[in-house]
């Protein structure tokens, strides 16, 4: 009996030794938001991991663009990110809602320039856009067949959160129902990856309905997980945005079955060691001469900040088709500007925050309340205005606004009951929280884009002695 038992144990040991053990290594990023400056470091991390694991799979969970004008305002918007992702060796990305910021044609162009695949199962563009998407793709990673399915979140309007006009003639299907159509990949692949731009809460929610998925590489909510988290048997990963960290996931497969999975964070931003080739490419994009382009001539110098503030609000109002505008004083970042050339770089230094342009329909009374709130919350600095002038008095003890009167440009008082279309940046809107009907909506444009367009349309500007604010005692 002892001999038989011993033989059985020996056989089991031998079988275990024969079991085929393979590892899949994934390097994943999410919500990079045009953090091009981090790519030399990311290139180094990818190279290091590839040295150890030659079949490393590199994935992005979407929102690669929108966050740095050097990327987003490139001649082909967002091409620097595509180029840098190509050189680092990304295999696939899914679409984030911000990938639609390029519009249909812009997105099609970027995908065609990508050396990696764009996978998104619930986005169905009309063929006329020539958007080269695939719902899923199989990758051979050192003998392991890895199925990757992409998916993007849908907002309350049933489309990803971007400007609806940029999604005309693109249809969208509900994420979970769509993903379920690809369950056949379980039979055909050793590992199934869901590349998700749904956000962490949704990833957790859907994990209970997708027992055949091994790992969800997530994005959208900018959630910092400690490596990864197991939910309903699925490993979920995600990091905060702009390449502060990436995730290295290891999935062990024995005899065609996933037997273990784990993930760890790797710091990117601010760390040493860079890939020099990637650093050179970055330098090329950062020194883009297009940013020295002259937009307009300042016929006279801007001698006080209010003159620049007036120009900024004029630009917001004119280029967004609004009737009035105001801008928090702290958002105008320099005091003076010489006569002569006004370049793209000058605009990006004047308005560097990549704020979004917003529109709100507000009554004259609501506008007065908003401006007072903005003054109180922006360090008691009065905002610059356009389409109107402001006359106000201050309480000498508290420095709070005692009385504020807004005037139309013809000198008549603004009608407190009339509704005006207001153009405002999203920061100023956030620090002007009042009880009003219309909380505001994004136009889908960055405010500096409107200033650039305004200057190009004007050709020449003259704001000498222009004043929009008057303090009365």
């Amino acid at each position, binding site marked *: 009996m002892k001999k038989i038992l011993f033989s059985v144990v020996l056989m089991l040991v031998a079988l275990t030794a024969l079991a085929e053990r393979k590892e899949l290594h994934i390097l994943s990023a999410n919500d990079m*938001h045009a953090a091009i400056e981090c790519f030399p470091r990311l290139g180094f991390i990818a190279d290091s991991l590839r040295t150890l694991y030659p079949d490393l799979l590199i994935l992005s969970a979407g929102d690669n663009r929108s*966050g740095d004008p050097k990327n987003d305002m490139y001649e082909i918007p967002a091409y620097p990110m595509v180029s840098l992702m190509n050189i680092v060796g990304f295999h696939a990305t899914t679409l984030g809602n911000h990938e639609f910021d390029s519009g249909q044609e812009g997105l099609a162009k970027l995908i065609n320039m990508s050396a990696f695949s764009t996978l998104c199962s619930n986005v169905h563009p009309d063929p006329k856009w020539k958007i080269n998407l695939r719902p899923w793709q199989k990758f051979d990673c050192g003998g392991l067949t890895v199925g990757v399915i992409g998916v993007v*979140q849908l*907002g*309350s309007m049933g489309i990803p*959160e971007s400007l609806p006009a940029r999604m005309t003639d693109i249809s969208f299907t509900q994420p979970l129902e769509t993903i379920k159509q690809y369950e056949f990949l379980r039979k055909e692949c050793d590992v199934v990856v869901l590349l998700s731009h749904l*956000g*962490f*809460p949704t990833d957790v929610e859907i994990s209970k309905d997708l027992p055949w998925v091994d790992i969800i590489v997530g994005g*959208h*909510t*900018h*959630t*910092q*997980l400690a490596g990864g988290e197991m939910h309903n048997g699925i490993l979920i990963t995600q990091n*905060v*945005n*702009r390449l*502060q960290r990436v995730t290295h996931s290891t999935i062990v497969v024995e005899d065609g079955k996933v037997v273990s999975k784990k993930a760890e964070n790797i710091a990117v931003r601010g760390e040493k060691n860079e890939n020099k080739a990637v650093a050179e490419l970055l330098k090329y994009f950062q020194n883009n001469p297009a940013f020295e382009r002259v937009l307009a001539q300042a016929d006279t110098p801007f001698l006080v900040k209010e003159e620049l503030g007036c120009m900024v609000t004029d630009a917001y109002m004119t280029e967004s088709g609004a009737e009035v505008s105001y801008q928090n004083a702290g958002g105008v970042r320099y005091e003076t500007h010489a006569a002569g050339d006004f370049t793209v770089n000058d605009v990006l230094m004047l308005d560097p925050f990549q704020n*979004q342009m*917003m529109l*709100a329909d507000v009554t004259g009374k609501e506008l007065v309340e908003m401006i007072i*709130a903005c003054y*109180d*919350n*922006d*360090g008691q600095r009065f905002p610059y205005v356009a389409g109107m002038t402001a006359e106000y008095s201050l309480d000498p003890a508290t420095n709070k606004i005692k009385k504020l009167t807004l005037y139309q440009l013809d000198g008549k008082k603004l009608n407190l009951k009339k509704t005006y279309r207001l153009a405002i940046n*999203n*920061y100023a*809107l*956030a*620090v*002007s*929280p009042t009880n009003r009907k219309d*909380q*505001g*909506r*994004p136009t889908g444009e960055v405010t500096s884009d409107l200033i650039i367009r305004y200057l190009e349309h004007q050709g020449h500007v003259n704001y000498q002695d222009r004043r929009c604010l008057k303090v009365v005692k």
Partner: protein
Amino acid sequence: MKLKINRKTIEVFEGAQVRHALLSYFALKGLDVSQVERLVVFDRWGHEIDLDAPASAHEVIKYRTRRK
């Protein structure tokens, strides 16, 4: 669009980031809005999220001041 910050419900505009929700919250509470950039923000499970995160993706957030 509404979300809860430290148990207070805040209404924010469409397309707002977590930053904008906190700016409105601080403004309504009469707190110094310049402190918002120094906050560490967490989701309902206690995971850290960044200020650029879309407000629409979070129903509840909490914050604390970053330790020096």
